[in-house]
């Protein structure tokens, strides 16, 4: 009896054990995620209703651009708020340009250039309350062409969805991170140092810059498009050239273009403005890096973490007297810097929880004058003693006539959307 029980028991246990190979067992993994379904509208309908509601809610601010007494504030992928800033203490929203997919702004004279997903629009803004589209260059930014030639995405429907996930064998790793990497071309136009007085001024995180008769656009992170805009009713793509790796921003200075990338700064000559040519580059550690420059120095902020990669959080000042031989001049530690701006000897840097103001008359010895507590500030424009700060919470303006005593002028707040 004893042997009988023992043998049968061992037999059953071993038989069960014999089934133990992984192919017999399938785990079950379900993923619940939020899906966004695009809402399409005919291009013709969109373009005929470009003059939108001036009271359009400011919900997701993007690029800032100033021209004359107006602020042009991008509503990310939705359009452009036109704000009368004749009195910086009392800015007034006077118009909204309904442009789906818009992220970039550039203004030359009375012509506003704006992207509408992959298309580039030339818009007559002589009367900002009643603008007119005068030409469209189709597919100027092919990276943002989502395959709809006659329609545009004008909205999204949010829907929660649960699906079965095929699991892989092996140890757990970071996988099945849902959704797509939604690449957003950074918003701000550059053009700050354009030689033409008729162009406007933008921040440091630009992907579009106006120089003379040409508009330079980063259509995707590795190339540069040149678009001739001398006759805005006949926009024409002049050239597309490979420009580097992971390019994020564009800044024009002295007939040159500085392209800020995650790896460094690429310098292009505009001696032949139809087709810029590479004349040098400066390489740094991997980080997000907007760049601005004056006659002698380029100022680059490096921000690490998240999608930027790298470990550096710093301000690099580069020798830029000779743009073919850019070299490191001095580095200053920062917290989490992003956009920056320069006016005369003053340097303004968005740095995490505040905007720092430096006396940069001696770049080898920057002196911090003050820090403006603005959380989530991502770009600034400093001009005529008025500092314009774009942040996650809104648009702030400060008077820095006395740099040691900067005074708040106004705040336009953002209503957070649910998306």
């Amino acid at each position, binding site marked *: 009896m004893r042997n009988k029980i023992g043998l049968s*028991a061992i037999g059953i246990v071993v038989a069960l054990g014999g089934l133990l190979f992984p192919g017999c067992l399938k*785990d079950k993994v379900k993923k619940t995620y939020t899906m966004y379904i695009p809402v399409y509208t005919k291009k013709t309908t969109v373009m005929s209703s470009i003059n939108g509601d001036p009271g359009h809610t400011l919900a997701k*601010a993007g690029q800032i651009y100033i021209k004359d007494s107006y602020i042009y504030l991008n509503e990310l992928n939705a359009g452009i708020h036109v704000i009368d800033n004749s009195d910086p203490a009392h800015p007034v929203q006077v118009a909204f340009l309904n442009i789906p997919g818009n992220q970039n702004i550039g203004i030359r004279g009375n012509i506003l250039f704006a992207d509408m997903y992959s298309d580039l629009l030339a818009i007559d803004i002589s009367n900002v309350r009643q603008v007119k589209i005068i030409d469209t260059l189709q597919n100027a930014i092919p990276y943002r062409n989502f395959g709809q030639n006659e329609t545009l995405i004008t909205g999204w429907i949010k829907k929660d969805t649960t699906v079965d996930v095929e699991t892989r064998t*092996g140890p757990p790793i970071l996988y099945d991170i849902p959704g797509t990497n939604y690449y*957003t071309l950074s918003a701000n136009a550059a053009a700050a140092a354009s030689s033409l007085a008729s162009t406007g001024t933008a921040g440091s995180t630009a992907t579009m810059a106006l120089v003379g008769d040409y508009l330079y656009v980063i259509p995707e992170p590795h190339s540069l498009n040149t678009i001739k805009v001398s006759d805005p009713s006949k926009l024409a793509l002049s050239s597309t050239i490979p420009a580097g790796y992971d390019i994020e921003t564009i800044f024009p200075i002295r007939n040159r273009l500085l392209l800020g990338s995650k790896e460094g700064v690429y310098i292009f000559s505009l001696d032949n403005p139809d087709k810029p040519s590479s004349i040098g580059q400066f390489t740094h550690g991997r980080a997000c890096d907007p760049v601005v420059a004056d006659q002698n120095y380029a100022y680059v902020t490096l921000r690490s973490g998240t999608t930027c990669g790298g470990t550096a959080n710093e301000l690099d000042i580069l020798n830029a007297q000779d743009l073919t031989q850019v070299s490191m001049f001095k580095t200053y530690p920062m917290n989490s810097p992003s956009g920056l701006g320069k006016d005369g000897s003053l340097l303004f840097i968005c740095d995490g929880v505040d905007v720092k103001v430096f006396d940069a008359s001696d770049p080898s010895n920057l002196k911090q004058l003050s820090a403006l507590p603005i959380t989530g500030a991502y770009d600034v424009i400093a001009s005529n003693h008025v500092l314009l700060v774009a942040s996650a919470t809104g648009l702030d303006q400060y008077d820095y006539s006395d740099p040691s005593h900067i005074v708040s002028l106004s705040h336009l707040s953002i209503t957070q959307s649910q*998306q």
Partner: protein
Amino acid sequence: MTKHILMGSLFVLCVTACFGQHAGRFRSDSYGGLSIGQMGSYGQVQTVNGLTRGPWFVGLGAGLDYYRFRNVPLFLSATRDLLANQRSALFLILDGGVDLPLYKRPSQAYLDLTSSFRAGPYWRTGLGYRWRFSEAGHRALLFSATYGESRLTERQTTNGRCYDYPACTITSETDTFDYTNRTMQVGVGVEF
């Protein structure tokens, strides 16, 4: 989670009260072995402590299992001898309880990902074999082979899915993963 613990506690109270009326003997079973499933083979240990009377043994169990995500099952265990003699027995195992996550997803340089796990239900059933070192003693060598399922829920939030500032259309996404792990467990243990 709270619901699972409350239900488990109530069940333990009922069983303890039942055994209390018949004065069972304290017994402790401890196992070490492997959890085997689609993800591969991972180590696991567990201990069950409770009361035994006649062919029955009921106790509270706790374990540590490295299958997919390190987790701690807390469960009520019941076994019943099916075929037995003085030194050996074949017994049926039935466990039920809650699986607690003990895992932190490692960070990755290019993803601002926050992850949090939640507990889920746990059950397991199978057969065991006991071989006593002596006919009079209570010490025994144990072998077990069981099949079971445990469920863990993970909430992943990806912040700043944005390759550049100033902003993105979608600045964060939250996804929920429900993992139902189906494993065989083989173990060798001792009974005291």
